[in-house]
């Protein structure tokens, strides 16, 4: 479904991504791991068009999307959440998700119809599926940290994506919240047949959840394989699991 081919990106001489490779099949849950600064977030930014790659291709459903601006990548069916909570903090929780739904329905430019009657059902369905319906009328800025992260995911779902990219969805969460969030992600993958690509620091979470794991180190892809194979791989142990103790 998604194929990243030999992607390169550097900033002012600093090479952030150099030769990343990634394959995501329809319906899969794929994790990207790697030490801090390995280029995971940059890779996600490149896939979603927030950054332009120096070289390489991003192919989604047979189409090269590496030159498209973010809003067009989104319209192809790729939706993402961000590592730092990236929400509309002065709007209500309901509107946060509604904005995405309206955009997906192509109604963002409508000037004359009252918005509060539009996309209500879809928005509420999403809020219900992530468990934020109770807080629909709260200002997004007043939510707890954990709820911010959930709202992130809810906004990304608002686009009815075919593929969801989650950048450290459980960053800063307590163990309980982490477990609940991962359960939510698995549930979404199963119930809606979503393809999910995510990166994560917590190795237990990754090896319990992902069906395929891609390991990045200094911007390069070391391996992409099933969890058992990744665990057994010598290079990975040297570069990452054994070495820097992040796991």
């Amino acid at each position, binding site marked *: 479904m998604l194929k990243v081919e030999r992607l390169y990106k550097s900033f002012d001489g600093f090479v952030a991504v150099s030769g990343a490779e990634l394959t995501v099949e329809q319906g899969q849950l794929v994790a990207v791991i790697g030490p801090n600064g390995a280029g995971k977030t940059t890779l996600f930014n490149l896939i*979603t068009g*927030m950054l332009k790659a120096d070289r390489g291709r991003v192919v989604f459903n047979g189409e090269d999307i590496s030159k498209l*601006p*973010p*809003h*067009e990548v*989104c*319209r192809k069916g790729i*939706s*993402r959440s*961000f590592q730092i909570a*990236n*929400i*509309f*903090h*002065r*709007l209500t929780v*309901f*509107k*946060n998700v*509604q*904005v*995405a739904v*309206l*955009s*997906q329905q192509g*109604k*963002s*430019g*409508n*000037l*004359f*119809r*009252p*918005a*509060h*009657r*539009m996309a*209500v*059902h879809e*928005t*509420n*369905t999403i809020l219900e599926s992530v468990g934020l*319906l109770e807080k*629909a*009328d709260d*200002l997004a800025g007043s939510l707890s940290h954990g709820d911010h992260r959930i709202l992130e995911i809810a*906004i*990304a779902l*608002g*686009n009815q994506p075919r593929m969801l990219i989650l950048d450290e969805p459980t960053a800063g969460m307590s163990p309980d919240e982490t477990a609940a969030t991962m359960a939510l992600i698995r549930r979404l993958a199963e119930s809606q047949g979503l393809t999910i690509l995510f990166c994560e620091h917590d190795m237990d979470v990754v090896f319990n959840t992902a069906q395929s794991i891609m390991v990045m180190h200094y911007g390069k892809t070391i391996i992409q394989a099933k969890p058992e194979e990744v665990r057994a791989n010598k290079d990975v142990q040297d570069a990452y699991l054994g070495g820097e103790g992040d796991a």
Partner: protein
Amino acid sequence: MQKSTLNPNVLWPWTLILVLLIFLPFIIPRFYTYILAVIFVTALLAMSLNMVVGHGGLFQFHHAVFYGVGAYAFALMLMKTAMPMWVCFTVSPFIAAAAGFLIGWFCVRLANLYFAMLQISLGSLIWAIAFRWYDLTHGDDGLHGVPIPDWISSTSGAYYFILFFLVLCLIAMYIIYHSPFGTTMQAIRDNPARCSAVGINVRRHQLTAIVIATFFAGVAGVLFVVLEHSVFPDLLFWVLSLEIFIMCLLGGWFTFAGPILGAAVTVALRTFVGIYTEYWTLILGILLILLIFFLPEGVMGLFQRKLRNRRYEEGAPGKRRHAQG
């Protein structure tokens, strides 16, 4: 239950105010009628600015230019052409909007302060032309004695004319504010990067917002001419731009009607403080500093927060209004 756009609870105080405003000219002296009309024009201008600043998060630092363009277009068309008044009246705001499109088209490529700077320089360009093209605009002297039709040339005639179009514009703005476009603009204000990640073409939205806002600024400019029968280059000077910025701040950026209040307070202050002292900008400056320190959300913003907190504490029935699809 769904909240209706025209909720009776919201509607009746506005209706009351409107009825009051319709009857006021019969009982108050002509000077006060005039001041009220000035407030209407300024309020419309401030509201139009707030569409892009408070609700759109754009650094629209030279909004007065579009007000001036609307005013000059209207005055020049009335004085130099034989077009009927209604044609001039309709065309002028579109000229302001065209200027808005032109300047906005360049500006939306840049962000924040650079946006502001490019707009100031492009705006100053227009100001410099109005200031220097003596043959057309009479430069610093401005144009006086613009031939306004008799039926609206009296103070009370102008008052009702302006009030009518103010109400019309406010209704249009209210509808836009609550439309998907308005909601999306508010989302862009809070987080443009996130908006493009959910598939919104941010620049196109911002440009559209600028065109709409400058159209309304143009209407305000036209109404100014109807009231004053004259135009001068100060209408497009940057000091006025910052003054209306303050009105928005004073009333409350993130509220709908805040700028009306801000405009009313500022115009009233200028008028009545101006009677006692010539140092009225000193007072404005001090007022602004007090605002920045103690009331950064503006007067209406404060009210709204208080209201929200109270509803929050009571767990009021309004809270779950989106629950049913």
